[in-house]
């Protein structure tokens, strides 16, 4: 089963509880935490890649715990019109979703490889990378 990118929202009441580890222990899922953040109100947000036969059961468990589960609809969009193919984003992108095709020295964006870390959004001198929800 192909990995599934999801966004989890933890209310403040459970932000300090060990929950994710149950996905591994009880549901035998392979997880990859792409991003995790707790805001000043102690609410947590996590972007997670989940892979395994019992993925749906695992997500049902999360919902039972009060965790909001949504598919990752946030994505990075490459505004090719704005891009000058300078390349300043390419060594910063941690997954090589942004890369230079050689020898043409053209910048390409592979949205499949993007983990929405958003480093490029601020690093792009032309502001050609946008977050879309």
């Amino acid at each position: 089963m192909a990995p599934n990118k999801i966004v989890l929202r933890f209310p403040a009441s459970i932000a300090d509880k060990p929950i994710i580890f149950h996905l591994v222990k009880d549901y035998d899922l392979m997880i990859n935490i792409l991003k995790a953040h707790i805001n000043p109100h102690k609410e947590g947000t996590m972007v997670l890649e989940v892979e395994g036969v019992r993925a749906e059961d695992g997500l049902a468990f999360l919902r039972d715990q009060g965790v909001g589960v949504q598919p990752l609809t946030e994505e990075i969009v490459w505004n090719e019109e704005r891009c000058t193919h300078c390349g300043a984003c390419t060594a910063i992108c941690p997954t090589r979703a942004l890369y230079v095709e050689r020898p043409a020295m053209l910048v390409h964006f592979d949205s499949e490889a993007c983990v929405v870390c958003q480093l490029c959004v601020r690093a792009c001198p032309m502001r050609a990378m946008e977050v879309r929800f």
Partner: protein
Amino acid sequence: MADKTFAEINAKIQAGKAVVVTADELVQLVAEKGVGPAAKEVDVVTTGTFGPMCSSGAYFNFGHSAPRIKFHRVWLNGVPAATGFAAVDAFMGATALPDDDPLNTNHPGDFRYGGGHVIEDFVAGKSVRLKVLGYGTDCYPRRELETTVNLDDLNEAVLFNPRNAYQNYACAVNTGPRTLYTYMGVLKPGLGNAHFSTSGQLSPLLKDPYFRTIGLGTRIFLGGGIGYVVWNGTQHFPAIPALPEGAPPVPSGGTLAVLGDLKQMSPKWLRGTSMLGYGATLTVGIGIPIPILNEEICYYASRPDSELYAPIIDYAEAYPNRKPGNLGQVSYAALKSGAITLDEKEVPTAPVSSYHKAREISAILKQWLLEGKFLLGEPVQLLPGPDAGIKPKSLEIRGSGRRNG
């Protein structure tokens, strides 16, 4: 081979008979045929560069309002322009920032809008908010003014860049423990990446390292229109540093002051640019034709990326503190390959100037020359070259003598 002259080449351009190639093409041609035959065959080689160039700006004459006002303070879209000229003249520098910009108070600052963006908005034909404060004189009684202007409204709008087209530039790295936000982009700690910023074998001044053809009056592609070299750039240091054994000598720091009519230019080739944690600037497209007057000029214009080197500079310590020395030299061929080896570590490389756009500029300029609508400007004076003995001066901080009193 007898030297060609500018006049002879211009006559061929007008007759539609000039042989024009881009610097990329010349590299190939010389590799195949040798310098001598290529020098005979080719009349003009076109170069190009498209990168952030902070020492850029534009001056404007806005025309007079009724009643008249003498510009004391001026803002365009909230970005302060420089006054101190005649009543309705002002200069917008590429790195100017709005008075209310948070700068780096929340480091790294975004610098989403600055002088370079104002210039881009003007050439894109957008309306720009003009705010002026005067102090009132008998001849200029008005004290305040707010309106919108666009490029067509202005008497003159002139791009005037005191330092552009750096001959060569540092390969920037970071040996320190934290991420650095620089005009060379985001540099990751522990040699996490290496950024460079010239177009290498397409870069104008790397192709005429001895300034044999470029000088005052050289006609150029500037921001999509036609511009001119009007002086050497500021910090023009064309001397030749020592390089690794066997590498050909390459000068490090010649620069150009360029000027052109902003009204001819295009937002495609003048782009407001935001360097995270550093500031706003302007990315400028420049293309320079190099007439192949003789074999020597052809030889230098045909040097490939593998023979052109950039110094590797540490932006954690050496650069900000102006400490001499570098971490070695690296060829543009290696930089363009995507990784270099430094300190036994593979370091990913990335450009901050666009080779793709530089190539497009060299092709456009070639087209202009082939169509006979762009003639070479013969310099009325060449610029100082490596033998001029120019040495960089630095700013010494002298005590006022009153520091403790």
